């Protein structure tokens, strides 16, 4: 189905079809858990894990699934991996698991994942689906990383829990509140659009 090269299949997730900045998908975790870098990173990696493995499984069994039960099957598969991720975090990283709270189980309904299954994995080979999932995951993780870096540095004056701003700095508490998430995401989207416009007009 897809006519892109393997490289393009990967890089499209980073910019052209970046799930958050270009497709505006998965905004719920993007806004909710990016107050601290460690949470953003954990959320990104958990989502990536689910996306990558669901894509592999779906693309393997795509021919067996009748289209009438495909959504049900995809959701069961996704939910399985989400539960695995949830249990894993609870067992080995209880603090992060507590911070992320309900947002790990909510990965089930993250549009990025079901969207990729419907739009890509169900039509493409295992290899391509894997590359696509890797690209989309990297795009998602990078976006969360940028957003949570901005929010943690400004909102707490720390990075990954280490103090990076001097004692003169008063944390902007708004940045770790929901309002700060919207502000930071809005500015990030604006910058992304601006870059997009600039590069486009140069062609």
């Amino acid at each position, binding site marked *: 189905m897809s006519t892109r090269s393997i490289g393009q299949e990967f890089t499209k997730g980073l910019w052209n079809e970046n799930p958050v900045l270009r497709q505006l998908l998965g905004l719920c975790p993007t806004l909710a858990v990016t107050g601290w870098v460690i949470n953003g990173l954990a959320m990104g990696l958990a989502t990536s894990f689910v996306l990558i493995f669901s894509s592999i499984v779906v693309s393997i069994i795509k021919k*067996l*699934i*009748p289209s*009438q*039960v495909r959504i*049900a*099957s995809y959701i*069961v*598969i996704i*939910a*399985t991996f989400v*539960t*695995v991720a949830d*249990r*894993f975090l*609870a*067992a*080995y990283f*209880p603090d992060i698991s*507590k911070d992320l709270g309900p947002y790990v189980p909510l990965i089930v309904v993250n549009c990025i994942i079901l969207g990729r299954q419907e739009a890509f994995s169900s039509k493409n080979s295992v290899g391509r689906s894997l590359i696509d999932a890797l690209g989309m995951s990297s795009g998602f993780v990078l976006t969360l990383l940028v957003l949570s870096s901005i929010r943690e540095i400004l*909102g707490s004056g720390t990075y990954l829990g280490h103090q990076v701003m001097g004692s003169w700095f008063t*944390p902007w*508490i708004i940045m*770790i*509140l929901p309002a700060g998430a919207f502000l930071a995401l809005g500015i990030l989207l604006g910058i992304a659009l601006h870059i997009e416009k600039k590069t486009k007009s140069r062609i």
Partner: protein
Amino acid sequence: MKLSVQMVVVLTSVGLLSGSFLATVGILTKERVELNKQREVEAAIIKVVPGTESSTKLYEAKDFKVYGGKNQDGTLIGYGILVSGIGFQDKITLMLGTDISLTKTTRLEIIEQKETPGLGAKIEDEDVFLKFWEGRDCSQAISLRKPAVKTAEELAASEVNTITGATISSESVLKIVNNSVEKLRQLIKEGQIQDGEQDVH
């Protein structure tokens, strides 16, 4: 007909496989998850009831659990009440330590809170809030001192300090504490809690 059979078979087997997979994962992680939870509670009891060596669960209800802290000899030296209640933003979960006669608080620990950072979240702050909760007289309802004072000596025996600018969060904690002490007293009176009956271990 063939398609219908295929639909049933596929979805059922997806369910079967996912169920088996999850069962395995559940068993593999169960022990650790429970261990984590237990450790957290235990660490909190040791903090709120000084001198605790081991603990037992004495009573359990929704959002209200009572643990007993025991010293080396195995005698009960205090209660740790793990309780949740509504704060300014969301649920506050805290553990209150009291002595065995329920007349004095030993210490307060905030387990989980989502209060406004910088204001209400100061209920986790040792110097501003928590240190004023040590050794308060809880034989009667504790009250809030407004406006805040500098040192614990300025407070009356059953008074705690308020947080400047976060009266609602301070009041929420106070309410949770007063209610839970009252509830525990009632439970002891009714004989529902006795010395170390249900051992956790």
